[in-house]
Every structure is written in structure tokens, then in C-alpha cells.
């Protein structure tokens, strides 16, 4: 690789993980240490939609927490835009969790404004961003409602809007539709694709649903049973203006089938049907 190519690679990689391992050791009990993840090498390119699928307990969420700076790697390096993360929450990163993370004591509007607390913006700009996020997520009629008055899907939209309002360059989604029904998930998938196109942000999605990954992502990382490693990376080849109607295409079935082929053994290991490889 020549110098120009190396520079291009560095520029196009927004997140890079090099030989990242995560071991959980209870204080004072090194014998009970659990090797949760790794070693993992991964590059996320600017503006791509990357999904991760893997068996239950394989460390998918741990991987997301390492990139978000919510947790530190036991060894290896995680970098965002060329700077090591090391447990610091980097600017420009937004996270949407599976659980309802809306603040029940704040209105929808105030929940969204919460995302802007640490940003020093003029009041006019704040109001503009909140209005834009409300409109983007179809929440305008509910701006003054409390989360308890909304459905689970609407509450998840509030959380996405709270992340969007900060205009993040990297959006991390930790099974954000896990608690929603299938139809709502497909429609929310469309909305996420729409946001991804409009914002130009990189999206990193953790999911246990193979069809969701196949429909949404440009690339899909398949993880092994614990300790989670990347055992396959599938390029979907979808065009950028795709939507949920691609589920009827042949290619969709082929991608889902390939994902399952890679995952089946690992999922069986995870539920104890096959002894985990050491």
C-alpha cells in the first residue's frame, strides 16, 4: 500500500478497533474472569451503515459500549476519528439503547432539548434543531406530551430524536427496535435509513434480527459465541436509497441465508448445544 492509499484509508475510517479484547474480572477474584470479547479488528468507514449480528451473550453490546466510550478495552485500541477513546465519551457520538431511555418527567420537547444541554448554542439555533428533530421523527403533535402518553415505538423515536438533535457523526444503535413488534420494526427501519441518508452520519447497529441487519446495513459483521470475535463480514451491495421493500428481493434471502449459515453453529454453542470452542 502506498502513502496516498494509507492516508485515504485513515481518512475514510471513522472508527478503528485494533486487537481489542474485553475481559470482565470481579474485583479480587481473577479466577472468575470472563473473556467477553475479542480479539477484534474492525474499521468503520465514514457514512456507512454497519450492522453486527451474533448469538445471545456474545458481547455485541460490550462492543458498542467500547466504541461509545462507556467501557474501556482490557487490551488493544479503539479510536474515533483517529483519536483513542479509552473510556472517554467522544464528541460527535450518539447512542440509542434498546430500553426506553426517555426521561418520564420531561415532555417530548424537553427530552429532545436534553441532548443539547452540553452544547453551547444560541437559543434560536437550539429551538431550530429541536423543531427539526421533532419534524424528522414525526413527533410535532406530541411535543408537549409526556413519554407515558406515547407507545413504545413513539418513545423510541423520542430517544432517536434526542440523539439526532446533537447532529452526531456516528450513531450507535443498541438493538433499538428489540422491544417493538415486527411491523413497527420494519417501518422504524425505513425511518432509520431515511435519517442515515439525510444526516450522512455513520450508523453502527447491534441487532439479533438477521432480517433487520440484511435490510438496513451496507456491511454486516457476524460475531462468534463468547468470547465474541468477528467470524464473517457480509457486504450487502444495496443502493443507498433502499427501503423495507427490499425484503422481497432474492438478494435479501441470500444475505439472510448466508448470515444464518455463519451463525447457526455459534448460536448453538451459545445455548449450550455444542461445547464452545476454546
Amino acid at each position, binding site marked *: 500500500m502506498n502513502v496516498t492509499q494509507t492516508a485515504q484509508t485513515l481518512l475514510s475510517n471513522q472508527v478503528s478497533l485494533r486487537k481489542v479484547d474485553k475481559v470482565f474480572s470481579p474485583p479480587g477474584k481473577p479466577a472468575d474472569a470472563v473473556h467477553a470479547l475479542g480479539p477484534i479488528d474492525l474499521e468503520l468507514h465514514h457514512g456507512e451503515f454497519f450492522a453486527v449480528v451474533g448469538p445471545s451473550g456474545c458481547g455485541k453490546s460490550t462492543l458498542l459500549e467500547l466504541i*461509545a466510550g462507556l467501557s474501556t478495552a482490557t487490551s488493544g485500541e479503539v479510536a474515533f476519528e483517529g483519536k483513542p477513546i479509552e473510556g472517554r465519551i467522544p464528541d460527535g*457520538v450518539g447512542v440509542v439503547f434498546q430500553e426506553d*431511555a426517555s426521561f418520564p418527567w420531561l415532555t417530548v420537547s424537553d427530552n429532545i432539548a*436534553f441532548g443539547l444541554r452540553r452544547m453551547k448554542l444560541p437559543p434560536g439555533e437550539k429551538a431550530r434543531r429541536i423543531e427539526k428533530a421533532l419534524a424528522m421523527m414525526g413527533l410535532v403533535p406530541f411535543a408537549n406530551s409526556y413519554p407515558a402518553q406515547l407507545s413504545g415505538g413513539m418513545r423510541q423515536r423520542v430517544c432517536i430524536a434526542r440523539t439526532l438533535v446533537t447532529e452526531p457523526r456516528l450513531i450507535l444503535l443498541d438493538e433499538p427496535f428489540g422491544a417493538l413488534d415486527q411491523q413497527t420494526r420494519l417501518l422504524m427501519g425505513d425511518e432509520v435509513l431515511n435519517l442515515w441518508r439525510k444526516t450522512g452520519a455513520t450508523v453502527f447497529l447491534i441487532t439479533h434480527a438477521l432480517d433487520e441487519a440484511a435490510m438496513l446495513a451496507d456491511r454486516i459483521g457476524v460475531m462468534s459465541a463468547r468470547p465474541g470475535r468477528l467470524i464473517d463480514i457480509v457486504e450487502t451491495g444495496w443502493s443507498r436509497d433502499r427501503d423495507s421493500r427490499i425484503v422481497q428481493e432474492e438478494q435479501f434471502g441470500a444475505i439472510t441465508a448466508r448470515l444464518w449459515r455463519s451463525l447457526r453453529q455459534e448460536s448453538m454453542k451459545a445455548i449450550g448445544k455444542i461445547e464452545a470452542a476454546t
Partner: protein
Amino acid sequence: MKSPVLWRIVILAGLVILLEVLCVAGVIDKLTMQPPHRILTDLFAMLATGALNKAIAKTLGNALIAFIIAMVVGVTSAIVIHRLRRVRDTLEPLFATYYAIPVFAFYPMLIVLLGLGDAPQIFIGAMLGVVAVIVNTLNGLDRVPGVLLKTARINQMSPVDTALRVTLPCASPYILTGAKLAVAYSLIGIIGAEFIMSSGGMGYEISFAYNNFDNATMYPLILLILLVSISINMMIARWEKVLMARRGLR
């Protein structure tokens, strides 16, 4: 009107009417108790003349100070204890047995330590309320979902900011339950302490009136204390209900 509310009012009104009938009919003699309508007119007269305003202001003022101390110390201690697992494991059994301690029995010691002024009375009022606030705040803090704390971290909030903007608002319905108890305990503490170690305040005036067979002062004061305590409690309960309803919990 909802029927349980109606029934409550009917039962309370029935008891007051029964008391009125028993007093007027002479079953309960005048030296023991005045009829409720007399207590009420005496209370209006007492408030109108302002004869006991100083005593009322002293008691309510001290109860307010005791309540504020109980809330501030209680909530702050709960936040600290919640973060320190070992301290919590040590203290929790003590909290459970705390209300078995007759705080009033320590009054001679409190006078020696804090003097003859209002301080020992406020101390007793605050001491009675503080543990109820700690226990209820801890209960609320235990129920803060982990995902909200993660959201605070993602938003780069400091621990103090997280406590003020996330954990305390989230735990607020439970803190209000503690506040309701703290109001009652502060009043109990202050009035009880005035009975035994004060030369002023509503507790002292009730005790003084009792010793002088002055039912025209004693019963109106008791009624006033009841009204104040119940009104504040109802206000907090209403606030609590609004917060819970907003969260779809009630």
C-alpha cells in the same frame, strides 16, 4: 364524586356529628371536651385576636426548619449511601430499627448539648424525619433505570449534574413519600419537644391550657395542628399523584 371519597367524607362527618351530639347531650361533660362547633368558633376567635400568633409562628417556623434539615440531610445522605455499597450494608439494619429509639428520652442530654433554646427541639424534629427521607430516597434511587444513567454518561454529565438532572427527578415520587413522612415527623418532634422542654410554642400552650382547664385554648390549638399537618400532607400527596400520573404509574 368517586364513591370511596364520598364514603370517607360521610364517615368523618358522621364521627364529628356523633361527637357534637354526645357533647351537647352532656354524655361528654364540658370539662372533658367542648362540642366541635365550639372548638371551631374558639379557633376563629383565637386566630382573629392574634393572642397565640407568636406561639403558632414559633412552632410552625421550627417545624419548617426541622423539615428542611431532614430533607436536605436525608436526600444528600441517601445519594452518598447509595453510591457506597458497604456503608449501605452497614447502615440499612440500623435504619430498620431506628424508629424503635425513643428520641424524646434523650431530651436532658440534648438540653446539655444544645442549650435551652429552640435548637434541641429542632434537632428532635429533624432527627425523627431524616431516616424516613433517607429510606424513601434510597428506594427511589434503586429504581432509576441503568439506561438513564448511561444516557447521562453519553451526555457527558458530571456526577453532581447526573444527581440533580437525572437521578433525583427520576426518584422524585419516592422522595415525596419521604417528604410526607418528614412533615408529620417534624411536627410531632417539635410539638412533643415543646411539651417537655419549652416555654413557648403550640405544644407548650396546649400543655399550659391543659394544666389550667382552659379548653377554649387547648382544643382549638389541637385542631389547628391537625389542620396544618393534614393540609400539607394532602398538598404533597396531590403533587405526588400528578408526578405519578405523568409517568403513567397511577
